[in-house]
């Protein structure tokens, strides 16, 4: 296998080791990205649903506020999915029409 990449001279890591480090790096970037996306979704959901459901903050969350919050959370995620579906559909449609950009 290593002959495919040429013999490793001194100082250059052997291919399997480098491949491992490359995979580790890529996975770190992927999970960082996924985490940032999830955090953004959480923050937005929190902000939008607080605005919608907790209109007059009292000493604790009421039962109806909690019901509203949990429905709101589901709806916000659904809205996120609808928006991403339409956006991606639009983008790919425009790519097809103008393949140059």
């Amino acid at each position, binding site marked *: 296998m290593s002959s495919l990449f040429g013999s490793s001279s001194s100082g250059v890591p052997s291919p399997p080791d480098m491949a491992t480090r490359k995979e580790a790096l890529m996975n770190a970037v992927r999970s960082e990205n996924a985490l940032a996306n999830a955090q*953004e979704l959480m923050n937005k959901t929190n902000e939008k649903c607080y605005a919608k459901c907790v209109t007059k903050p009292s000493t604790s969350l009421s039962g109806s506020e909690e019901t509203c919050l949990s429905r709101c959370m589901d709806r916000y995620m659904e809205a996120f999915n609808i928006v991403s579906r*339409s956006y991606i559909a639009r983008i790919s449609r425009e790519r097809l029409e103008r393949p140059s950009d």
Partner: protein
Amino acid sequence: MADNMKFDESTQKELAKFVETEQAQARLHSTIHMMTGMCWDKCVTGTPSTRFSRSEESCLANCVDRFLDTSLFMVKKIEEQRSQLA
């Protein structure tokens, strides 16, 4: 970085390409987050219920397309005005 920790040239190229696609993905996500927030405020006016009404659902989908149309329209208008000045 120590010399023996460096990636070879082809791996560096591959990683650069990978990072570029991940960044594009991140930009796509942030655009979708921005539009979800905007369209949520525009389309979901009542108290959230157990499911979206038909009109809320189509409003959300239309909201994205009309926002993009608006942006194209604005660009067209600006270009028209610029060509009139010239």
